[in-house]
Every structure is written in structure tokens, then in C-alpha cells.
């Protein structure tokens, strides 16, 4: 009995030392850029970029495997920041590979179809959905990022994404349709 305990302890100790040594000896410094990138990403892990969460996206970006336009909820401002961090050129708006500056989308719940199953608000990464079991849920516009997660889990297809409604506060004039004059000037 005592021999068995001793031998196991010795084995554990030696293996532990070896692992500790290996961790020190073969330590790989996580690139500082990874930290920077992860900091500017939304951190909602919505998965729209196709990578496993924001950390995965940051790794891909740091490795140069992904374009800076990968994050739809981040929009153009994030593209500019990411381009600054990674040192690539900002893809010109409207050009190839550019992030299409769409009107921001937000989730909308058809209250007739909502069964109060609570699946969506458990899934929402920004707590933008309020509700309780067997109560109709609703979306807080200002907190919704349009990440699509709730649409995926809704069992009754009661949630859709639609453009954020225009109000007097966020309304602005359309671009005047005069490409001719300025196009020549540019």
C-alpha cells in the first residue's frame, strides 16, 4: 500500500515538474495585437463573422486570415479602427471588399406570435430583450445590435430583423443625386 502511494506521488511530482518546465521553456507570447483587437470587437460572440466568438475572430485577424470588414455589427467605424490596428489600408467605401454601410438592423417581435418561451432573451448577448415566462417579450431598440441570435432560436418565427426606424432625432437628408458635378471635380 505505502509503496503504491509513494510511487504515484513521485510520478505526479516528476510529471508536474516536467510540465512546469515545459510551460516556461516553450512559452509562446500571445501577440499584443490580439489583445488590442479583442478590445475593440463588440464582445457579443454573435458569430456573424463565422469565427468561434470574438476571440476567434481576433485570432484570425491577428493571423491575417480574415479581412478587417468581418464584423457586420461593428460597421464602418470598426473597420477603420481595425485597419489602424492591423496596419492595413481601409477598404474604400463602395469599393470591392468594402463593408456595405447598411442601415442598422434591429430585432422586432411580432407579439401575436410570441409564446413567452424566454429562449430569445436567454440568448441575447446584450440583454436587449425583456420578458418573462409566458409573457410577451419585447426589444429595447437602443441596446439591440441586430446580431440575429434571437431570430435563430425563436420557435415560432416571431422575430425578424428590420431596419432601425427613422425618427426626428436620427433623420438626415439623403445624399443629393448630383454625382455629375462633383464627380468631375474630384
Amino acid at each position, binding site marked *: 500500500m505505502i509503496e503504491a502511494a509513494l510511487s504515484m506521488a513521485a510520478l505526479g511530482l516528476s510529471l508536474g515538474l516536467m510540465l512546469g518546465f515545459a510551460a516556461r521553456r516553450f512559452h509562446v507570447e500571445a501577440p499584443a495585437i490580439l489583445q488590442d483587437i479583442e478590445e475593440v470587437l463588440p*464582445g457579443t460572440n454573435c458569430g456573424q463573422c463565422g469565427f468561434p466568438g470574438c476571440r476567434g475572430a481576433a485570432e484570425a485577424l491577428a493571423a491575417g486570415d480574415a479581412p478587417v470588414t468581418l464584423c457586420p455589427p461593428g460597421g464602418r467605424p470598426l473597420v477603420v479602427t481595425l485597419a489602424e490596428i492591423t496596419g492595413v489600408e481601409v477598404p474604400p467605401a463602395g469599393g470591392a471588399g468594402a463593408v456595405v454601410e447598411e442601415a442598422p438592423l434591429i430585432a422586432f417581435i411580432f407579439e401575436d406570435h410570441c409564446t413567452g418561451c424566454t429562449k430569445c432573451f436567454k440568448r441575447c448577448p446584450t440583454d436587449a430583450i425583456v420578458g418573462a415566462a409566458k409573457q410577451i417579450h419585447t426589444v429595447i431598440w437602443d441596446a439591440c445590435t441586430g446580431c440575429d441570435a434571437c431570430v435563430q432560436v425563436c420557435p415560432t418565427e416571431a422575430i425578424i430583423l428590420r431596419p432601425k426606424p427613422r425618427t426626428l432625432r436620427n433623420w438626415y437628408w439623403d445624399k443629393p443625386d448630383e454625382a455629375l458635378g462633383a464627380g468631375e471635380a474630384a
Partner: protein
Amino acid sequence: MNLSALLSRLDPGRVFGIGGGVHPKTRKSLSARAAIEPMPLPPLLRVPLQQHIGVEAEAIVQRDDLVLKGQLIGKARGPVSANIHAPTSGRVIAVGHFAAPHPSGLPVPTITIRPDGEDRWGPRLPRLRPETAAPDAIAAQVAAAGIVGMGGATFPSAVKLNLRDRYALETLIINAAECEPYLTCDDRLMRERAEEIADGAAIMAKALGVKDILIAIETNKPEAITAMRLHDVALGYKIRVKTVPTLYPMGSEKHLVKALTGQETPARALTAELGIVVHNAATAHAVHLAVRYGEPLISRVVTVSGRGVARQANIQALIGTPVSDLLAHCGGLVGEPERLLLGGPMMGQPIQNQRVPVVKGTNGILALTKAEARTDAVMPCIRCGSCVHVCPCGLMPFEMNARIQADDLEGASKTGLMDCIACGCCSFNCPSNIPLVQAFNFAKGRLAERKSREHQQQETKRLAEARQAREAAVAEAKRAAMAKRKAEQAAKKKKADEAKAAKAAAAAAAKAQEGAS
């Protein structure tokens, strides 16, 4: 003190150049001879709760409530907001949304009142004696009366009267330049109610704690200048009337300050930094009514003009009067107008819906015919620099426009987009009819949207982190509870086992005893 300030002190009549500006046809003669006339009560009044810059007011009446003239129906929310009062007595028939007097026509919270025709006043605000009132009390009265800048900017006036706490103020300028073509509402107000305006100006000077009052009037309003010069002393304050050249955009706050004092206001700063506060002449009149008589701001003078309307007039209209009723009172439209504007032709906003109401900042309703509106085709920019010559802010509109057209908004804002006051001189003067100011308005809106999205991005991050922290805490709590339960169960089991063992031991002992005996 710089040279220009010294010069203006040595020669009080001196007026400085502002650089840039244009001379559009003023066409003020269309309505300048029409005295201010009252209007019969319209069948409905639609009073929006957002008539000012800042947060919308909160409705404090409900459907079917009876309201009296001057009764508070919308309460200001937050520091930058304004009270809304019932323009006449009647019944509230709806508290909901209605199209805003805005180019978008988007809905805005609106209280609809059906007048009972009696026009019965409710209790007015307590009167103040400005001779003895404290500055704070005057500002509070102006806030209670819901007065906002009536030149069109609609910034709550009381906030501006409270600037004395933060800046060393010396001068109050009453802006009566009225540089927009067509508009004559301030002109008529000065001709007919000069004494009231002078008194209101003196009351505001008292609230601001300044000694110097200047009234700036463009040279094309000689009658108004004469009328105001007759009232050069009010409340013991000396009031100086200064004439400024007829030049658009002389009525822009910062340009007026430049013309009168020679001092330039720093970019994106308040004129208060120079010790100057600017208020509109109509605002001064409203302050007079609010302080002397306790009357809230429930009506204003509106110029109805343009050749597209049968009779040009200056009308004392209740806030909330639909544009269609005002036009009908003036004999209606002559044919289909090319453009229907709220405000002046340079900076006014087109409206799509004639049922939208007149609000506190509506100084004019213009129905422009094809001959008056410019509809020429756009041609390429020839880089002639006409826009640069007339830009009163010293910007290069053609360069900014080129950048905006190339979707380089950051570049446009680096070349001064944010200093643009959207006066429209560049578009007016462009020989190629390029919609320059329209592009700047678009770009400013787009940049503001981006900024708000950036802000939202940060908020999202905060929310996501908060959620993750909460989920971690919940999981931790669950684990702890589970461990506790496990420990409890283990303890219970142990206890049971012990009890069992004790029992067995006791039984064994008893058996042994039995055996021994």
C-alpha cells in the same frame, strides 16, 4: 483686447466686414407693408411637444381634458427642454403622434386641441416687476413661459439667460437683422411694438447682468430702425441701435458678432466666450409678455409670402395653427407652388404636408413659384471658386463636396465640414447649380449617425461584458449551492450511517449481554 475690439470701442458706429456673403433678391416688399393681423381661431390646433432643441416635453393632459388658454399642457423634461402651453381654450381631442413641420414629415408627439371659440384665459403666470426682480427669477419666468429662440434655432432661451454663471458677460445683442429674403415678421414687430421689444431686451440684459445692449438691424428696414431708435432707454438701460449692411447671412449669430465687434467667435464655441449673448427680437418681445404680463409663448408673428400665395401677410398666429389654415386665410395658393417652405428661402425647410402646424420657430411660410425657385440643371464643377468667395466661414465648399461625393467624409470634416453653418451661400452662388449645401447637410447627418453608432458599439461592449459577468456569477452561485447541497446530503448520510451503526452496536451489545446472562 485685440485691435478690432479697441476700434469698436473708439468708434461705436463702426461695422466690420464679415467676409463672404451673398445678395439674394430680398423681395421683402411683398409683405413689408402688411401690418400684423390677427387670425380667426382655426378649427383645430396641433401642438407638437417637440418645438425646441433638446428633449421633448412631457404631455400632462389627456384626451377629453378641457384646457384654458395659457394652461401648461407639456412639461419640460431635463435642463434643455421647454414648456408647452395651450394656445387657446378648448378640448383636447388627441394626445398622440402627428407629422412634424420638418422635411421628413416624420411623426412627433402632438396634442390636438379643438378650440371652444371662447378663447378663455386660465390663470397666468405670476407677474414679475423687472425693476426689482432677481436675475434668477427672470430666467425662471422665461423658462416657465416656454420661450425658445424665435429666429428659427429654437434653443431654450432660459438656458442662454443662465450663461452668466459660467461666463463673464458684457453685451446683449438683439438680432433683428432678418437677413433671410421674404421674411418681414421681425421688421413688422419692430415697427409696431418697438417699445415692447426694447423692454424685453432690457429685461434680458438684467437677467444676464450686462450693461450694454445693441440692436442690430439691416439697412433695408429704415422704418424699423427709426421706430427702435425712439426707444433707446428701457429700465434705465441705454439701448444702441446699430445698422448693419444688407448682406446674407448677417443674421447668423457669429457673423453678427463679427460685424458688430470685429471679434471672431472660436470654432464650435459660444459667443458667450467673447462676453456676448445674442437673442432674437421676437424672443425679446416674448420675454416682455412673459415677465410683465405672465403670458406664456402661445403665438408668434409668421410671414406668409411668395408669389404662390394670393395675399402676402404678416399674421399673429397661434402655435399649432395648421399651415393650410394660414394659407387659406391669405386667400389660398395660386396654382401649385414649386416649393412650399417653412422659414426663409435660403435656409427654410420644404414641407410635404400642408396640415403640419406652425411652431415656435416658424418665422415664415413661403409658397414659391417656378420663377422664384431655382430648378436649373446641375452642371459639372469648373472650379471657379465662386463658392469659396462667398462662404462666410472661409471654407472651400467645392473641395468638401468633392470629398463627400467620393465618400470621404472624414476628409470633408478635416476640410471644415463641421464649421459649415449651412447658410447656402455656396449653392446660391454656384454657376453650375451644384447642390453644395445639400451635400453638406447629408454629410453632417451621416457623420452624426456614425458617431452615435460608435457610441452604441461601446454600449454594446459594456452590456455584453455585464451579461457575461452576470452569467459567471450565476454559474458560480449554482455551483456553490450544489456543493452545499452535496455536503448537506453527505452529512445527513453520515449521520444516518452513524445512527445505524450505533443502533447495530447497541443491538450487538444487548445480544452479547443476553448471551452472557
